């Protein structure tokens, strides 16, 4: 009996010839990343467990939610994280951006690797064909002490997308439509494997978005089978890695024709509450947000710039742009993307998680409405409990920024707004 790509990676890291769904295995990891939000808990637990780090070379520290700090408490966390990294000889990123695209940009997450991080969107790194899953800071402290952790082998749901996406349709439109079909958490405790021509041709940026949103599916990990030469700007080309066997056993397989997708918006308060952009057109917005790990590459900013170049942001709208990483920021400066965004009236923020978690620049006030490229729109996610967050692609967000209301990107590009 064959294995899925997820099963192969887990078996290899458990030093076993095979694993089956339901097996609890003790595994080696290639990289373990602790972030600023969970650093306090990690640090305290590590002390409780003896304060020894078995393999500092496999650990990473990333400050991405709080940087640059807005308050004393956040400043204290980031300061302590930096100091800890220096003292223990751990590779530390204090101002380079969000861990998920960073893991890929830095070449830390590679095909066949097993990656864990204290962040629910760790699934993103599955875009390169790695097994990447979230792990809490207590588990991370135990991993630091023992050098290993345990995982239960998940059953795999396979999603096959074939064909050519229609104009104005991006990876996020595909993932949100799938989420709407099956519901929030449909992949709880499971692996989600993306495959098919469309996925192969999306490029690394689109595959990062697909894997990122498997977190909202409930998946333990999202993964794209690595295929030679399909990587695009924003990261290295993905070399060959493990594939699912032709006789691998999937819990379920679902096939989509890419031509059936259209630009969509997820209406608050759930990412699964998905509607065609045309049905919510005219919804007034106060803020438009381009950022977050759901759109972690230069391609996403370039896409927004195709709408914003030569146009002005609506006078009643605040457009915030948070480059996901410093490298993306620099690339966007070099190729004119950033100039186009800034000239349209956008406010450019420092690389990081930015305004998505509601603890940094751009927090929403009571009653305010945002449209965003982020992945979550739960009650109070980005500010006041009575604020609203609509989710959409960089094209949809940029179009809304210009129009002042949610609108189809084609309408703005045609000059109707």
């Amino acid at each position, binding site marked *: 009996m064959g294995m899925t790509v997820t099963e192969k990676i887990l078996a290899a890291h458990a030093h076993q010839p095979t694993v089956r*769904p339901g097996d*609890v295995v003790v595994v080696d990891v290639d990289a373990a990343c602790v972030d600023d939000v969970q650093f306090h808990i990690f640090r305290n637990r590590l002390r409780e467990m003896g304060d020894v780090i078995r393999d500092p070379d496999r650990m990473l520290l990333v400050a991405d939610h709080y940087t640059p700090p807005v308050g004393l408490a956040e400043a204290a966390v980031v300061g302590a994280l930096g100091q800890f990294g220096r003292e223990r000889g751990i590779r530390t990123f204090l101002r380079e951006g969000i861990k998920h695209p960073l893991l890929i940009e830095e070449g830390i997450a590679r095909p066949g690797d097993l990656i864990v991080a204290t962040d629910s969107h760790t699934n993103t790194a599955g875009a390169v064909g790695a097994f990447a899953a*979230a792990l809490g800071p207590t588990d991370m402290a135990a991993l630091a002490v023992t050098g290993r952790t345990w995982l239960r082998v998940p059953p795999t749901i396979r999603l096959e997308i074939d064909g050519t996406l229609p104009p104005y349709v991006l990876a996020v439109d595909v993932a949100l439509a799938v989420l709407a079909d099956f519901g929030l958490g449909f992949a709880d405790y499971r692996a989600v494997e993306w495959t098919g021509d469309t996925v192969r041709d999306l490029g690394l940026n689109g595959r990062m978005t697909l894997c990122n949103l498997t977190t909202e599916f*409930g998946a333990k990990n999202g993964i794209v089978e690595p295929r030679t030469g399909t990587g695009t700007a924003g990261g290295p080309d993905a070399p060959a890695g493990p594939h699912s066997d032709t006789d691998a056993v999937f819990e379920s397989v679902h096939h989509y024709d890419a031509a059936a997708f259209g630009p969509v918006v997820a209406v608050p308060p759930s990412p699964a509450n998905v509607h065609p952009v045309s049905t919510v057109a005219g919804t007034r917005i106060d803020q438009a947000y381009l950022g977050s790990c759901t759109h972690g590459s230069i391609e996403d900013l370039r896409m927004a710039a195709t709408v914003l170049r030569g146009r002005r942001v609506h006078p009643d709208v605040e457009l915030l742009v948070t480059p996901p990483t410093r490298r993306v920021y620099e690339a966007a400066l070099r190729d004119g993307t950033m100039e186009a965004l800034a000239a349209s009236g956008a406010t450019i923020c420092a690389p990081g998680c930015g305004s998505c978690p509601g603890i940094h620049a751009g927090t929403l006030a009571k009653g305010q409405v945002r449209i965003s490229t982020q992945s979550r729109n739960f009650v*109070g996610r980005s500010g006041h409990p009575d604020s609203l967050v609509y989710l959409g692609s960089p094209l949809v967000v940029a179009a809304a920024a210009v129009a002042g209301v949610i609108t189809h990107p084609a309408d703005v590009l045609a000059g109707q707004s």
Partner: protein
Amino acid sequence: MSTSERDVAAARRAWCFGDFVDTDAIVASRHLSSADPANWSAQVFAEIRPDFRGGVRAGDVVVAGRRFGTGSSREHAAIALRGTGIHAVLAESFSRNFYRNAFNSALLLLEVPGARELVADGDLVVVDVAAGSVRNQSTGAEGVILPVPELALRICQAGGLPAWLAANGNTWTGAASREPSGSGGF
């Protein structure tokens, strides 16, 4: 976790919630930078159930629908809930991150099919993990608790992962096992 006979027989007040209670709703992001877990505990359900913190008593249970603990993987949510003194969370299902974090912090999570139909807010319930049963003392209705994965239960009974790991000689010896697929977090 407490498993004495007396505790098993105890009738516990239920605090009921709906589907998809996310970790932002358990503890909002702006409280996470505090280093003191008491500050997280003080904010539990502050926005979705403002009367919870003042009213909850040690030994009470939280009852919810599908995917309790969804969203952000912040472990603060599990630690804060544990800090309120509740005995357990009974739900249809849990988010994987929350599930693992909870057992690591010795917060007992129990998957109970039909939990929300079985229990209404304010009902008194009797929870028996060993027998795999839950009884609504207020209505007489009975429900089933799905088996808790053995490793999770062992970690919880030890008082959380640091204590379990110390007792296990800082190794994972004995952790590998086989669990029924498709239920029980992780």
